[in-house]
């Protein structure tokens, strides 16, 4: 009985090791607007608002399985940006996001029984924009780094994200043709969508995946041998 239990545990851990190789890529839509507020000369503050459907979260994944929110540790709860500079190569502009924050992602898949929340730190990063005044067109994009965090659920993608971290890009709708200076000075309220990804390094994934698969095959073969020996 004890051996069978250990065997189940071992197979379980190999399977979860396999699952954790998957990485994660989530695309999402904002349930409410993102608001940019002026915060002094050449500076602005980005707030992601909560909406009618997923409060207290701010966005939902395209399949509806995950809800997320991004809040800053800044004094007003927004992500401050400043130091607007021409981007390298004359390709639009770039500003520095100076406040860090927290990302929370609710995994709804076992609701209503239990919901597991991933929590991780968002490091300051950059706001890209000014497109339309240069050779490049496109919406202003918020880029944030997700640090490794905590997660106690069973979703393999979130498990991987909590272990390895990742990054988020958010497109601010209707900002093509606006400079970052204009956004900072005049403010804006608009919808947004984005993507969260925790990429898997290809080589290590393949090796680790093959290793885990090999281990699983070995365990199954050994288990079969042991069973046939008991029958004889």
């Amino acid at each position, binding site marked *: 009985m004890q051996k069978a239990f250990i065997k189940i545990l071992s197979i379980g851990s190999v399977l979860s090791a396999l699952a954790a190789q998957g990485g994660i*890529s989530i*695309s*999402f*839509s*904002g*349930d*409410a*607007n993102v608001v940019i507020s002026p915060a002094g000369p050449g500076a602005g503050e980005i707030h992601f608002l909560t*909406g*009618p*459907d997923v409060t207290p979260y701010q966005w*939902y*994944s*395209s*399949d*509806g*399985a995950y809800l997320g929110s991004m809040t800053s540790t800044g004094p007003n709860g927004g992500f401050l940006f400043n130091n607007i500079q021409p*981007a*390298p190569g004359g*390709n*639009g502009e*770039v500003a520095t996001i100076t406040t860090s924050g927290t990302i929370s992602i609710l995994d*709804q898949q076992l*609701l209503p029984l239990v919901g597991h929340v991933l929590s991780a730190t968002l490091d300051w990063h*950059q*706001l*890209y924009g000014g*497109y*339309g005044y*240069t*050779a*490049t*067109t*496109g*919406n202003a*994009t*918020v*880029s944030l780094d997700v640090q490794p965090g905590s997660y106690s659920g069973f979703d393999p993608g979130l498990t991987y994200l909590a272990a390895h971290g990742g*990054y988020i*890009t958010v*497109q601010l*709708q*209707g*900002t*093509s*043709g*606006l400079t970052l200076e204009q956004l900072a000075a005049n403010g804006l*309220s*608009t*919808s*947004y*969508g*984005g*993507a*969260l*990804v925790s*990429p898997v390094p290809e080589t290590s994934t393949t090796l680790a995946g093959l290793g885990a698969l090999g281990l699983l095959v070995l365990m199954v073969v050994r288990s079969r041998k042991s069973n046939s020996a008991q029958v004889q």
Partner: protein
Amino acid sequence: MKMKKQMWAVFAGGAALWAVAAQGSVVLNLASVPGSEMQFNAGSSTFQFNVGNSPFFPQYSGDQWKVVSEGTGNASVDDIGAFGPMATTAHTIGWQFGAISLFGGGLETAPVTSPSGTQISISDGNNGTLQGALNWGTIQTVQGNGAINASLVLNITGITYTGSGPLNNSDFITLKNDTQASMVLSFSFAPGKSLTDLSTGTGTYTTSYSGSLTDANVPPPHPPVPEAGTTIAGGVALGLVALALGFQRRKALL
């Protein structure tokens, strides 16, 4: 007499400024509902808008996107929560995009043909429906510094609105009166994908999308190329202001 002429000048200036201001009107911000995804069918150069089917959000089953807010900062309560299927056939018939043109800065564009008879349809939440025909569009991806920016621009014509009574939607009435609008949908992949990536290989690529529906009277932020009619109207209005100010100045000198 002098007072009367001053009043005329102020009135003329005010009317001219009103004419300039009246060119701005309705902007509706949109987001795909949970479970609705934009799906690219690689290899066939087509895409489609799948309808919401998330078990976590049954209220959006069969819908594609919702109006999140108005973009002008003065959203009225009756707009929020308006939703509806984008088109009756769009989720079963792929939208076709044509030959991809490559430009500098990583810009890729292609013309889009919507399925025949495709209409946009938005419910106002009070038994009223706004509808319009989607005729043509352009899809583009561009390599920005932060990510690959991707967007679809659509032209909406023949807008109708069936709302009536005290609960009708004033923005929808404005859209109906203007009869046409434009719609920009943005979408992104991580890692980013260009139009070439999305049209080659096998399989499908899905993602969420957000966007805005803009009244034809609102000048688009990009590209900053005003239409001929807008230029003439704006020019006439500004000319009126200049005339009024010039008249005032000349009078003061005399």
